């Protein structure tokens, strides 16, 4: 008996066959590890001596002072560089977007260059530059009569140093995002504003920024993800979480729990807490984008 397959069934089968490789990869490398990771986080103990302990690790972390310190450090880092890098990126985009400016492509490329350099290289270079003994920054400061600054050895300055590096790294990328947002804005609003006698500042405050809100939300979300995840490389290379845990960001603490204290269940539990925090931020961003902002619906 010959099996009859309709045209619609054929389409359905071929569509899923095309999707199959992606589904296999998604299940193997995302969904299964996600479930196994969560299951691991419910165990207590280390290595082969692990036993099921429900949410003990989560409870332990909530009581752990180092966890709250890491969360605080991560939030300060993320908040600090998101605001600064966003403002600098927007400022640069506004400058580059100036029609009379020459060598636009040269400026764009120059400002964007840090973002294409590997973070490991950036970390190493900045670590040398910020070295209090033989770093170029202190060399410059002392040569103009100022005091040496302990960039990486002081608890307060170490985190600030990481924020500065991250701003330098991401400002160019933010500029590109804002620039694409600016270039997509309709010119009619500006023409109308000029007719009404609005100056550059008023145009920026009442037209450009409100219209750029979707881009701003996107930049903020990307920055938060960068702040939570990419900071690991910087913190690991430049300060190793020190001094005195001043730069011990969440991901570095996860690494410490897993690979230094050899406690994978606890490290997994912290990973899921981080995941929940990030998911929360993404949810807020999603909701904000859905809302009507400044009278415009996204």
């Amino acid at each position, binding site marked *: 008996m010959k099996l009859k397959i309709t045209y619609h069934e054929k389409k359905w089968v071929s569509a899923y066959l095309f999707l199959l490789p992606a589904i296999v990869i998604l299940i193997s490398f995302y969904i299964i590890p996600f479930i196994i990771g969560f299951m691991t986080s419910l165990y207590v103990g*280390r290595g082969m001596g692990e036993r099921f302990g429900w949410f003990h690790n989560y409870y332990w972390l909530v009581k752990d002072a180092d966890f709250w310190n890491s969360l605080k450090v991560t939030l300060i880092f993320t908040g600090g560089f998101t605001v600064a890098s966003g403002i600098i990126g927007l400022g640069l985009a506004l400058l580059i977007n100036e029609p009379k400016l020459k060598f636009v492509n040269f400026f764009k490329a120059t400002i964007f260059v840090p973002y294409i350099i590997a973070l490991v290289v950036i970390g190493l270079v900045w*670590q040398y530059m910020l070295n209090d003994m033989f770093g170029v920054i202190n060399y410059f400061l002392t040569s103009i009569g100022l005091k040496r600054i302990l960039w990486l*050895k002081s608890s307060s300055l170490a985190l600030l140093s990481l924020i500065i590096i991250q701003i330098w790294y991401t400002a160019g990328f933010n500029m590109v995002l804002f620039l694409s947002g600016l270039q997509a804005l309709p010119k009619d609003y500006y023409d109308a504003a000029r007719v009404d006698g609005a100056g550059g500042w008023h145009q920026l405050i009442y037209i450009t920024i409100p219209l750029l809100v979707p881009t701003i939300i996107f930049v903020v979300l990307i920055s938060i993800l960068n702040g939570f995840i990419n900071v690991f490389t910087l913190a690991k290379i430049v300060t190793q*979480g*020190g*001094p*005195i845990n001043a730069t011990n960001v969440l991901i570095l603490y996860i690494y410490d729990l897993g*690979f230094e204290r050899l406690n994978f269940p606890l490290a997994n539990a912290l990973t899921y807490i981080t995941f929940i925090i990030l998911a929360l931020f993404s949810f807020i961003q999603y909701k904000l984008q859905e809302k009507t902002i400044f009278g415009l619906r996204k």
Partner: protein
Amino acid sequence: MKGKKRNISLTVISIICLVLLITSIGCAQEKFSIYWNSNHDYAVYNKIFQQFAAKYGFKIEKTTMLWPEFKTKIMTDFAGGTAPDLIEAPPYWFLNFAQLGYMEDITEKVESWPQSKDWFEAAWREVTLNGRIYGMKLHHTSMAFFYNKDYLMEAGLDPDIPPKTVREFQEACAKITKAINIPGYIFDADDQYEMSWIFTEETPYLIENDKIAINTPTNVKTLEILQDIIRNGWALTPGPGTGYQMMRRLFIQGGSAMKISGPWDVQNINKFNPGLNYGITIIPYPEETGPRSLLCGTGIAICKGGHAKEAWELMKMLTQVDIEIKATKEAGMLMPRKSWVNSPEIKGMGFPVADLAATLQYAVPATVDASILALPEISWGGKVWRKFYERIIYLAMPAKEAIQLYEEEANKLIQQRLTERK
């Protein structure tokens, strides 16, 4: 035309089959994997690996790494069930890994091996957990005090009489920095090195009677002297993220006059600055007490689930006394056998082996109890110890306060662990 096509198809299929056959023969050869430290990748060991491979028909897969990536990789391998057959690592790692259930217990093998009596007692203590042995020392070394003779001479100090006490060390730092504008001393990025200052005859161990034992007036005084040296700019301190070999390389290149290091840097000196005129002695100690030093050196151990029987044979091959002597000749390393110390070849060796061997008699496995308690965080490289080190060298926190904070935090963890075990 059809025949030609068929011929081409046959040729292609034959080539594919041939490639598959060759690769499957290659795969059929059983693999024996080894993780080794890149700094200990000596020719003499590589020759042994080849001999071992030929004898047992293995294909050796050796991966060399530096310590920071080594630990990450091995932990990932343990979790993924892809651990190698043999690892070379610091012995306290074996104890940590053994508590996680990842290491092969070799107690019976060691006890039935007559040559094990030839080893220094301390060497076995470092790899023993609850009476069971989980590895064996490959190198048996200690922290030592390296000094640049030329700089001492230029500063008006006798290059053959290096500072013996902490006070003399402080004076030497001051003199050298003032006279030749080179930092007298260089602190290491790796807190293990500077740990040596507080392991003296009075406090040779980090933990005694289940409590931190290093909070003494003598140690506070030593730490205050070290802080004074930093405050006056007579020493260089690393930043928190400084690469772990960087400060040692700086000393080798003439960036400071004195430095704590060990035999592992002899090869680096020979490689990077063979003209360095240096001396080696025991680490300066407080006047009130006698010298002690931190026992170091790596070991070899078998991971569970691999070729345990053959790995044990390889361990024995690597630690034969003639191999040890060859490794010493090649890299200046010190070894854990009594017959190595007593061999005429070693006795006849002058500087630096003889000088390094002289420091070994003062060395104790000072931090082994932290490993036995499975508390890597309170010992060197761990977060709690690291904070203590950073409070001393970066924050210039009063030494008494810093040592007290460390003691409180570490004792709390020790008590927690002991309660868990009960």
